[in-house]
């Protein structure tokens, strides 16, 4: 399943880029994130609680950043297992383009789900993914603004 989207963020590409690699920002931004541990410069382990249609589960997953072109683009790959709820895995190409005072973030993601998630939630995956993405970027924007006010040293 392919997901496409675009977000206008009120920050420079460098600020957005830094936030994308900031554990604290990501933890605040990922919907349902219970814990996020940075395991290397480019990898994280997350526990996320999600509800998709009738299926709710805690996902344990890994996120890996690759194909890094600083300030411009990178690929986020993730794989999460939600116990009996099933699994989700995917990869998203994220690109940043400056536009005036804003940065346009475009993403193209290829997502696959399995188990009960696929059996029950198939019709809901796209709408849920859209909702979760919106929630992520709303949180992300909020965190970005907060970062600007109180820059992390």
């Amino acid at each position, binding site marked *: 399943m392919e997901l496409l989207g675009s977000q206008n963020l009120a920050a420079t590409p460098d600020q957005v880029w830094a936030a994308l690699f900031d554990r604290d920002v990501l933890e605040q931004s990922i919907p349902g994130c219970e814990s996020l541990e940075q395991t290397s410069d480019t990898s994280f382990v997350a526990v996320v609680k999600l509800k998709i249609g009738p299926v709710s589960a805690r996902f344990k997953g890994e996120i890996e950043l690759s194909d890094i072109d600083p300030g411009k683009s990178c690929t986020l790959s993730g794989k999460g297992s939600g116990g009996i*709820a099933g699994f989700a895995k995917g990869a998203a190409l994220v690109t940043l383009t400056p536009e005036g005072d804003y940065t346009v973030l475009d993403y193209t993601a290829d997502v696959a789900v399995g188990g009960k998630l696929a059996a029950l939630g198939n019709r809901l995956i796209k709408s849920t993914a859209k909702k979760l993405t919106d929630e992520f970027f709303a949180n992300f924007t909020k965190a970005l603004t907060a970062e600007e006010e109180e820059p992390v040293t």
Partner: protein
Amino acid sequence: MIPSKNHIGQSHRRKNAFRHLAGRGRFVTDLALPRMVHAAFVRSPMAKGNIVELDVSEAAAASGVVRVFTAETLNHTCVPWTGTLDHFAGMQSGAQNMLASNEVLWVGHPVVMILAHSRAEAEDACELVMLDIEDEDAVVDGDAALVKGTPLAAEGINSNMCFQTVLETPDLDDAFTRSAHVVEGKFTFGRHTAVTLEPRAIIADFDPSTGQLDVHHGTQTPYQFQDVYARHFGLSEGRVRVIAPDIGGSFGMKLHVYHEEMAAVAASLMLGRPVRFVADRLESFVSDIHARDHRVTARMALDAEGGILAMDVDDMTQIGAFSSYPRTSVAEGNQVIRLMGAPYQMPDYRGRLSVVFQNKVQTSQYRAVGHPIACAVTEALVDRAAELLDLDPFEIRRRNLLADDAYPHISATGYQFEKLSHQASLEKLHQMIGYEALRAEQIALRKQGIYRGIGIAPFVEITNPGAAFYGIGGARISAQDGAVIRLTPAGDVHCAISVTEQGQGTETIIAQIVADQLGVTPDQVKVTTGDTDNTPSGGATWACRGAGIGGETALRAGRKLQAQILTLAGEILQADPMHLALASGAVVDKTTGQERITLAEIGRIATYRPDTLPKGSDNSLTAAQHFAPSGYPFDFTNGIQASHVEVDIETGVTRLLKHWVVEDCGRIINPLLVDEQIRGGVVQGLGPAFFEECLYDDMGQMTNASLVDYLVPMAGEMPDIEIAHIETPTLDTILGAKGVGEAGTAAAGAAAMNAVNDALRPLGARISQTPMTPLRILTALGHV
């Protein structure tokens, strides 16, 4: 006076219907035993992969959890099972065990079993299991599975071909060379599943103090499971009791061996307490057997007058990662290629069958095994031939159906027909549906942009199998049935019989048959079924054998008891038993009908005052009888169905206007229940024709595994179903009944597909895939 000796042939209401309607059903799902624990399973979310990490420690410590089993701790208790049979030469399948140990092979494959004080606690604990699977490329498509270099769908097989065979008459190629016309087609039949009202249910109850295993099991074949549990868990058969009480629908789905039921038995043996597993609807979709899943390429050769010379058929059927046990997943395809063209005087034939493994849940025997596929392909080709030759669908069938005086007949595929009534059925249907008027209406409505279609489909149905189905292949599946009938001290009658009741009325027809042999009313006959400790051994209810084999068993047992009663009565009355008969609950004078002594009095004397009988009298008022068919290897019934539909060519939605069935099931024991069986069967045939399909994505994920997305036929969509009968009893038995459970399902989809194509014909469109969804119809019309 209460009439007697004529209950066979009468419409009696189902004995258990009132009890069920009153909420007094006794289903396994309702049963609660002391110290019972509840099972839930962690299942594979992937179609194929290797288990790289499995940690159950958190789950084992969770609230309410009694025990957690993995392959390592459970599988050693059970001898693995392999779903192959010797008479399917060259057939292969991997061995199966309860829980996946290294590899998971379909979405839904059980990996961990959790036992807790409640199902809810067991399910909660399932979420705490850490299961990491490294996914591998799954074999999803049957044609792709056979391409060289494709990974194997399972361990223990040397290719993804489970079984292949070719059935061919010597003159097949010559028939096509000689032919004036050839019609052909490619057909796809989707996967669907049973969706029983009560899902699979089991409570295994092992008592270590006695060594007795009681299994309360919602199955149609208790004796088969008694044998399976004894053999695979190393128990003595006498210490295994399988009790199948009320069953909320089975349809063939509940006679296969499933991982979860075996695991429940294994866990009970280890814990020494009752273990309950009741599938929920969601896990039913990914663990109950699925049905069909065929791709068929077929052609038919005809002479200049539209006479069918031959068919050449290639069926590829996709069965999942394993062949099911103990009946195999090959029987369906085997019947598909053997039933092609069955109603017709078709001299030549070639049928190729390829049974293919893939990483999906197993497919296997389901109501009307193979019939709907063979019927739909054959009848679609006959309709195409009629169109090509500009013949009416009735006329081309009139020219080709076996003549009613052409029996015995051996079909091109080797089936022996004792006597069928195709031509009479065809004419009866023609009259019943008011054919000419329907055609006139069709033409008139087309002018208004309303597209209606009429489709017909004759069929042959296999019933009453002897040992040829499974026994000769080495399967321990009973080819016979048994009954024990006794007269109680108060003069009532009790019949314990091995055929089982799943709501179709088995107990009612057995009571009717027994009543007629003993001169009582069916109400006076109590029938016990579904308990291996309390009924004699037998094959139970599948392949329409309940009436034909079970009924004959009851009849013969009844006659045996009748003879015993008359002998005893003769001794009491000092009369020649030859001059006595049973009627109206008494022994009567055979010629005058005058009552001599009541059955209650016989029961009283034999039980409480045997001292008053002449010395040496046998006071036995119990008779046991077993019966196995010994004439033809199978019985065959026949009939014809018609479907009337309206297709909305803008939306692709089909409205089912009416459905008709003319059916010949041999002797009719209970017209009401026969019609109920046919109606239910027709609905079960129309479901997969229009609605039901298990959809998978290209990763092997089932994407509509709930009743939100999987469509079952509902009353609102179903047409009125009108039924008529012809009775051609089999002469192989005294009773003459052939069976009726699968007739409706056999041809309903075929008639419906012909009807839809009849509606689409003026638009130059044609559909060859089921279910015939609105989207597929619009695609056929070129609208999408």
